[in-house]
């Protein structure tokens, strides 16, 4: 079993992706199948970037056991105003600054959903909590 935790700083584009990069290196070192690593990294990176561009900051946790990989992202708000819209491909509330940094195509949550086996989103004005699960084949 492996557990890790990463701080995510709002609007810090230099550090954005650091957690996902570490998660990728962890999975590569453990020799997981490439297709699984790719899916985990895509979801993790999108969720991390979402936290950087949309939230007041937060943190991520990585959990691995024999059955599954669980990524969780917690932030301090302001929450997802309209979840259905946020799940729509191409819809984005990203700013010009986010676009200049290469993000805000409106593909974040749809990409996470597509890449993962299970996605749970809890959101209010106090913050958003994402639970992303990948089941390991025995």
């Amino acid at each position, binding site marked *: 079993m492996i557990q890790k935790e990463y701080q995510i700083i709002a609007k810090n*584009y*230099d550090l*954005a*992706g650091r957690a*996902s*990069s570490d998660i*990728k290196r962890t999975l590569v070192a453990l020799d997981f199948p*490439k*297709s699984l690593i*790719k*899916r985990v*990294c*895509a979801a993790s*990176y*999108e969720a991390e*970037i979402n936290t950087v561009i949309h939230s007041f900051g937060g943190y991520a946790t990585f959990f691995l056991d024999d059955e599954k990989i669980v990524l969780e992202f917690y932030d301090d708000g302001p929450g997802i105003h309209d979840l259905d819209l946020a799940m729509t491909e191409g819809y984005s509330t990203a700013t010009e600054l986010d*676009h200049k*940094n*290469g*993000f*805000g*195509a*409106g*593909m*974040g949550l749809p*990409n996470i959903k*597509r*890449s993962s086996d299970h996605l749970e989103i809890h959101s209010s004005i106090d913050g958003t909590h994402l639970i992303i699960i990948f089941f390991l084949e025995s």
Partner: protein
Amino acid sequence: MKLSELVSLYDCKVYTKDLFQDLEFKYAFCADLMSDALMILNSVQDDTILKETILITGLTTNQSIRTAEMLDVRVVLLVRGKIPSLKVVDLAIESNIILLSTEHTMFNISGLLYEDGIRGITYNHL
């Protein structure tokens, strides 16, 4: 096409000289929005294709390197002679990404590479 041919034909600057390997590549993908790159390139089922893909972008931030790293793409080509900052070059070195730049615009370098036989990546609807 070999990377060395790309460098000499299109007068590319190599920012990560120590990492440079004369890799063979057959595919390229252009994006300034990294979410697009993540979505399209992640839909590729055959991993060997991404190993032979270069990412062409005008985005000179850490995120172009991070995106390439996440996708297992080994080469990032910056267009329009853009100069990456030292921190971006350092991240490329740390992430084992070969970072190049060319004076050509994104459209022109894409057209030139297409003429050379390099092909694009198609979105694979899952």
